[in-house]
């Protein structure tokens, strides 16, 4: 069938700068550049270009510029170019349109409508370079009350404490499985988490045996609906066990790792035959109620001998606060909440772009509900989905999160350009592919340093912002919404967020 689609991107080659070195040709995994020996010239094939910018970054003479294609249909605010292209795509294929990364639609980003406070005159700000600043975060259930016994040596805690995991700063890497991302990317996350003293999350792809001893202490291992890679050693080598109920990018649906991505090693980790599709069902088929969830939580607590916090990850949807309350009462020590802008390696576009609610509103609602019910101490809340900078992180903590998961930001730090073609397995940056020719483009020694640098810079920025507020510990801003003000928000939004408007 002849395709009626317009090219998404235009490749501009400044011929006066092109030295025909063919680096662009070799770096493009979809064949967007070709050298023609008859013309002794480079040619571009725009119809395949996904705008990943690999060629533009690697061109040694800066001869390439890749930008959105200027060809347009007649301007129509209802029928955008994207909508028309999608219709044509579906007419040509009869399929569900797949995509990767997080929701890119212009839903309100509440972080951009919240501002943080600072000290002026009436209370002093703190210089974090001169004074200690505490970002240590403990994840897990806290006791209802703390009974201590004062004696000559000091004091002793008499209350029974639950297992908690300490992380050096309230930022961890979110669930990205080996299989969805390359081994190199997966290893880079683990290396960086260990170096910084935070967590990475295995997703539903198992934890390779050779990584367990070294990186298990920094791992959150997932138990998801496909139960891939799950056994008792897997749970016991980790710091936290997470039950994955849902994902912000695709609430209510499962996962599908195509057989082409199930290489020998991916298959071994997932304990499935090589080359077969790894299908994660939409629900966990043993969880149809809060009571069922409780059974799995306690089964996992039994398996880990009550030594590890159990987390439950859900997507932000309607009634999320009530669901969260049920999860806490089911015995979860941590709730991870993934908002509508959470990323994915593959999801139907219609689901990614239309299902779920913004994280900010869900987070505020959950924190308020758990406080109102007097059970906020019984769990930690990890927020996930679309954290772009340390400002977003601090705002989330002020809204009530204990820590945040970052996925997309970490991938971007490693090279990802959000071209949204993760599901094709042809990631030109070596992040989201199992092709050995492409995945070696990501050098874990370099990528892990970039991730560590990213977290260190966020750590500095968070300390600076806290210092400006006159706060010297992250605990003091947690759930402290008085340090937030809304700008350009309506009354109901301010009510849900529990913050005042700026100037109030």
């Amino acid at each position, binding site marked *: 069938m002849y395709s009626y689609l317009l090219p998404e991107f235009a490749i501009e080659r400044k011929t006066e700068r092109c030295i025909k*070195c063919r680096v662009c040709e*070799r*770096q493009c995994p979809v064949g967007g550049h070709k050298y023609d020996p008859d013309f002794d010239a480079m040619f571009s094939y725009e119809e395949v270009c996904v705008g990943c910018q690999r060629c533009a970054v*690697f061109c040694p003479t800066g001869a390439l510029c890749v930008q959105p294609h200027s060809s347009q249909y007649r301007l129509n605010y209802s029928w955008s170019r994207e909508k028309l292209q999608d219709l044509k795509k579906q007419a040509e294929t009869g399929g569900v349109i797949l995509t990767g990364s997080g929701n890119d639609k212009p839903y309100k980003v509440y972080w951009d409508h919240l501002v943080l406070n600072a000290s002026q005159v009436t209370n002093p700000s703190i210089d974090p370079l001169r004074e200690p600043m505490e970002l240590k975060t403990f994840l897990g259930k806290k006791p209802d009350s703390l009974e201590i016994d004062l004696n000559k040596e000091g004091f002793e805690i008499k209350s029974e404490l639950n297992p908690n995991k300490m992380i050096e700063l309230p930022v961890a890497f979110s669930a990205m499985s080996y299989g969805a991302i390359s081994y190199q990317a997966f290893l880079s996350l683990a290396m960086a988490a260990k170096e910084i003293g935070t967590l990475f999350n295995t997703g539903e792809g198992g934890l390779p045996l050779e990584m367990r001893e070294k990186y298990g202490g920094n791992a959150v291992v997932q138990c998801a609906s496909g139960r891939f890679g799950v056994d008792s050693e897997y749970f016991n080598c980790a710091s936290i066990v997470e039950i994955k109920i849902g994902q912000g990018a695709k609430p209510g649906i499962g996962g599908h790792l195509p057989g082409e991505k199930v290489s020998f090693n991916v298959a071994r980790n997932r304990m499935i035959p090589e080359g077969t599709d790894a299908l994660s069902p939409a629900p966990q088929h043993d969880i149809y109620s809060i009571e069922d969830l409780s059974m799995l939580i306690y089964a996992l607590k039994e398996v880990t001998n009550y030594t590890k916090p159990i987390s439950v990850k859900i997507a932000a949807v309607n009634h999320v606060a009530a669901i969260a309350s049920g999860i806490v009462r089911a015995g979860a020590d941590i709730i991870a909440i993934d908002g509508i802008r959470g990323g994915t390696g593959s999801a139907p576009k219609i689901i990614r772009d239309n299902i779920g609610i913004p994280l900010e509103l869900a987070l505020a609602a959950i924190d308020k509900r758990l406080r109102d019910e007097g059970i906020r101490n019984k769990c930690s809340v990890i927020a996930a989905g679309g954290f772009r900078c340390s400002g977003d992180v601090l705002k989330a903590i002020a809204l009530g999160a204990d820590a945040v998961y970052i996925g997309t930001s970490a991938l971007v730090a490693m090279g990802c350009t959000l071209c949204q073609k993760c599901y094709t397995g042809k990631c030109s940056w070596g992040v989201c592919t199992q092709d050995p*020719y492409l995945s*070696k*483009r990501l*050098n874990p*020694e370099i990528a892990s340093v970039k991730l560590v640098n990213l977290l260190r810079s966020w750590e500095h920025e968070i300390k600076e912002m806290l210092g400006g507020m006159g706060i010297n510990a992250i605990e003091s801003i947690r759930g402290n919404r008085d340090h937030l003000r809304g700008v350009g928000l309506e009354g109901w939004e301010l009510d849900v967020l529990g913050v005042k408007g700026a100037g109030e």
Partner: protein
Amino acid sequence: MGKILIKPEVCIGCHLCEIWCVVAHSRTKDILKAFLLEKPAAISRVIVEERLPVTFALQCRHCSEPDCVFACISGALYKDSASGRVIHDPEKCVGCYSCVLVCPYGGIIIDQENKKVTKCDLCEGFEKPYCVSHCPNGALVYADQEKGGV
């Protein structure tokens, strides 16, 4: 003397090492002039070997017992005892290609234009070989033995 270590597991086969080798051995050291202006263009002394998905960049290993030096009939190739480098003197080279035949690594490059050979000189005069400093993925590492390297 330093040595260039090769890491095939992270070599991405972009051939930028070859491009920058040409620039390093050009007259102008300017990438555009080296490729578009200089005639004849400089020759890359590093070659990316490929059998996909495996790729790696290979240049003269500066062997401790170099076969090319033993085979050289004109004395153009010699081992510099002070620096440890295997050095090629184009003035003496007669283009017999004996060195090309005996090098087990394929590290000697034929210079068709001048009917001579050329080879890696570890970028004498630069702090680091150009192929190493311009590798985008750390697939070439310069280990300076005097500074405690390999």
